[in-house]
C-alpha cells in the first residue's frame, strides 16, 4: 500500500532542536527528521505568523524564503519552482499574516554533525487567529503525547515499538520514539514540558504577552541558514558565469572561482549537494554542473 505520510503537529521549539535525519534508502523511500521527542517527520503541519518573506531568485524564477513564528520559535520555509502552489501563494501573501503550511521536512548540513532543519511547503494558505489557536492546542496535545511516550520508553529496560503500542501509542509515534532513543543520548524533558505550558498559557485570556527581548537558542541559529542560502546564490551565479557553451560549468573552475570568493572546497561540496538536492542544478556529465 502506498500510504501518504502523516502531517506531524510539532512546535518550532521541538523541530528546530532536531539534528537527526533518517535518510531513505532506495529510490522512493522517504527521509525523516527525528525530533528529540520522537516525532518522525517527513511531512509536517504548521500554523503561525508569517513574519517576513523574501525572494532570493528572480521574478521569473522565484525562490522564496519565509519565516513562520509560533509561540516557541520560528520555522524556516523555502520554496522554489518545484513548489508551484506554495510559490504562488507566497507571492500573494503580505506579512504579517496568519498562515497554515503543509510541507516536507528538509535538512541542511554545512558541516559534519551540524544539521539545520527547514520546511519545504506543499501548500500555504492564509488562515485566521482561531485556526492558529486551534493548531497551538492540537500541537500541545501531540507534543505532550510524544513527551510522555518518550519518557515512558526511556524508563523501560528494553524499549520496543510493540511495548509502546501496547501502552496505547500510535505505531508511527512508537517507531519515532525508538529512533529518537537511538540518536539522542538525553532529552531535557522539563524544557519541553515548560514549552507546552507556555504555549497553553498563550491561549488563555489571562495571558498578557510579555515583551521578551532575550533571543532564544533557536533564533541565534537563524543567521546560519540565511548565510548558506546566500552562498548557494553565489555558487549558482558562478555556475552561470562559467557555463559559457550551455553544456555545464567544469567542476575544477567552480572550485577555483568559489575559492576566490572565500568558499572552501568542502563547503562548496555541501552547497552543490544542497543545490542538487533542491533540483536547482544537475550534473549533465561527470565533472560538470549545470543550472536547471
Amino acid at each position, binding site marked *: 500500500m502506498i*500510504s501518504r505520510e502523516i502531517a506531524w503537529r510539532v512546535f518550532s521549539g521541538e523541530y528546530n532542536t532536531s539534528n537527526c535525519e533518517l535518510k531513505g534508502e532506495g529510490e522512493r523511500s522517504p527521509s525523516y527528521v527525528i525530533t528529540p521527542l520522537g516525532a518522525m517527520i517527513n511531512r509536517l503541519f504548521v500554523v503561525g505568523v508569517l513574519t517576513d518573506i523574501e525572494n532570493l531568485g528572480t521574478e521569473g524564477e522565484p525562490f522564496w524564503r519565509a519565516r513562520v513564528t509560533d509561540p516557541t520559535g520560528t520555522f524556516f520555509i523555502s520554496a522554489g519552482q518545484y513548489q508551484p502552489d506554495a510559490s504562488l501563494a507566497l507571492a500573494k501573501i503580505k506579512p504579517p499574516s496568519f498562515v497554515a503550511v503543509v510541507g516536507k521536512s528538509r535538512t541542511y548540513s554545512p558541516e559534519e554533525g551540524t544539521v539545520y532543519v527547514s520546511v519545504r511547503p506543499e*501548500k500555504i494558505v492564509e488562515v485566521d487567529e482561531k485556526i492558529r489557536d486551534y493548531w497551538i*492546542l492540537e500541537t500541545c496535545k501531540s507534543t505532550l503525547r510524544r513527551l510522555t511516550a518518550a519518557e515512558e520508553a526511556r524508563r523501560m529496560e528494553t524499549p520496543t515499538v510493540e511495548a509502546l503500542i501496547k501502552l496505547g501509542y500510535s505505531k508511527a509515534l512508537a517507531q519515532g520514539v525508538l529512533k529518537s532513543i537511538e540518536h539522542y543520548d538525553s532529552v531535557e524533558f522539563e524544557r519541553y514540558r515548560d514549552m507546552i505550558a507556555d504555549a497553553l*498559557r498563550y491561549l488563555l485570556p489571562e495571558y498578557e504577552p510579555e515583551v521578551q527581548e532575550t533571543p532564544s537558542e533557536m533564533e541565534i541559529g537563524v543567521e546560519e541558514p540565511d548565510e548558506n542560502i546566500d552562498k548557494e546564490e553565489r555558487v549558482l551565479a558562478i555556475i552561470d558565469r562559467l557555463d559559457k557553451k550551455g553544456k555545464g560549468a567544469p567542476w575544477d573552475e567552480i572550485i577555483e572561482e568559489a575559492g576566490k570568493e572565500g568558499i572552501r572546497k568542502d563547503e562548496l561540496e555541501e552547497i552543490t549537494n544542497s543545490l542538487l538536492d533542491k533540483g536547482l542544478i544537475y550534473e549533465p556529465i561527470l565533472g560538470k554542473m549545470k543550472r536547471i
Partner: protein
Amino acid sequence: MPMEDLKPHIKEISQLIGGKVSEDEISKELDTYLKVYRVPLETAKKSIVRKYGGNPSLVSRGQKKEISELTTNEQSVDLLVKVVSVNKREVEVDGTIKPVLYGVFADESGAVPFTAWEADRFDFKKGDVIFIRNAYTREWNGQPQVNLGNRAVVEKKDSATVEISEVEVPSFAESVQAKVSQLKDGMNNVAITGRILELEMKVVSTPDGAKPVTSGIIADETGKVQFSAWHDFGLREDMVITIKGAYVKGWRGIPQINFGQRADVTEYKGSFPAADVLARPAKRTIEDLEKIGGGIDVLVSGVVVDIREGSGLILRCPKCKRVVQKNLCRLHGSVNPEPDLRIKAVVDDGEGVLTVIMNRTITESITGISLNNAMRRAKEMMNPLVIKEDIENLLIAHPVEVSGNVTRDEFGLLMIASDARLAEFDIRSEATEMLTKLEGMY
C-alpha cells in the same frame, strides 16, 4: 489380523453392498481372501464389494490422521477421537427434513467440528471414544470440518485409549467476545451482542442452490456492522441479540459478520443503548480504521491538509455520471456535460490519513459555494480551476468532522462522506484543563 480388528471393515463392506449379504458371510469371504489368497486388505474389500454389486472405489483407503493433520480437503480419512459434544438438529435437504448430528471431536492434537449427515446411522454419545473410517473434510470458516457421510463407518472404542488435551477443547468451543469496533477480517468464532438496526430478507444463489439470507446492520456502542445470517433465526428489527460462532469477512476493508445454522443466536435481555443512540455515527480514530481496514457510518475528526486533483467544479457525462474531460465521455463519446461540485479532501489527524469524497450537497454546505455561484465565478475568471483554489483556501488547515463509510484500497483509506462539517472547538476550556493537568505533573 485378529478378527476383532476386521469388524469395521466388515461393517464398511456391508454398507457398501447395501446389506445384501449378512456380516457373517462377509466375514468368511474376507477371511478367505486374507488368509488363503493373502491379498492386501484393500484389494480384498474391493473384490467383495465388486462381487455384490457395490462401488469398489468407495472402499476406505485407510489413511489415519490426527486432527491437527487434517486439511480442509480430505477425501477419505480415518480418525480416532473422543466425542466432546454432540447435538441433533433437523435440516431440510432436497425438500425432506432429515436429522443430522453436529458437535466437536477431539484428540491429543486438537479439536474439530463435525457434522454427521445421517443421524439415524450413528449412536455415539458425548464422552465416547470412536474410530471413524471414511470421513471427509470441508472448509468451514477457513478451518477443516469433519463430515460423516454415507460411507463413514463408526466403531466405539475403549474410552481409555484417547487422551484429549483439556486446553485445546475449550479454546475451540468458546467464542471470542468482541465489540463491533474490534471486528477484523478473518476473525473466527466471534461472540457479539448488538441491536439490529436494519433487516432485509433476500435469496442469494450459491453453488448449492438458492439460499435465503437475512442481512442487515447490527450495532453496539462502538459502531455498526453489516451482517448476513445464513439461517432463519427469527430475527426482527430492533431486537438485541447475542451471536456466538460468527465469523468476519472483509469487503474492501470493511469487516462484515456472517453466521449460519451452527451459530448460537439468543435474544439479549440486559439493558442496551436505544436504536436512535446507536444510529448515530460512531467516533473512530483514523489509525484505528487503518488497523481494521474500514467501517460503516463512522465519524472521524481531523484537519484538511490537502485538496486533491479532481476537486471543485467538474463536468460529468449526463448518461453515466462519469467525470469527462473536453466534453468527451469514455463510454458515450461527445456529450453535453453536466456541471457538478465535488471535493476530494485529505484529512489528517496527526496519526493517520484519510481521503474524503464529498458530493455536491456536502461541498455546498461545508464551503458555502453553490454550484451556480461556482459556475458564475469560473466564467468570470475564465478558469474552472479557480474553484479548487477557493476550496483550498476555505478548507486547508481547518478542523473537520466527517462521517460515512470507509473502505481501503492500495492508496489507503477512502471515505464516501454522508456528512461533513467544520468542527466546533472550545480552545480556552481545553487549554485550561490541559494546563491544570500539566502543572499537576511537576
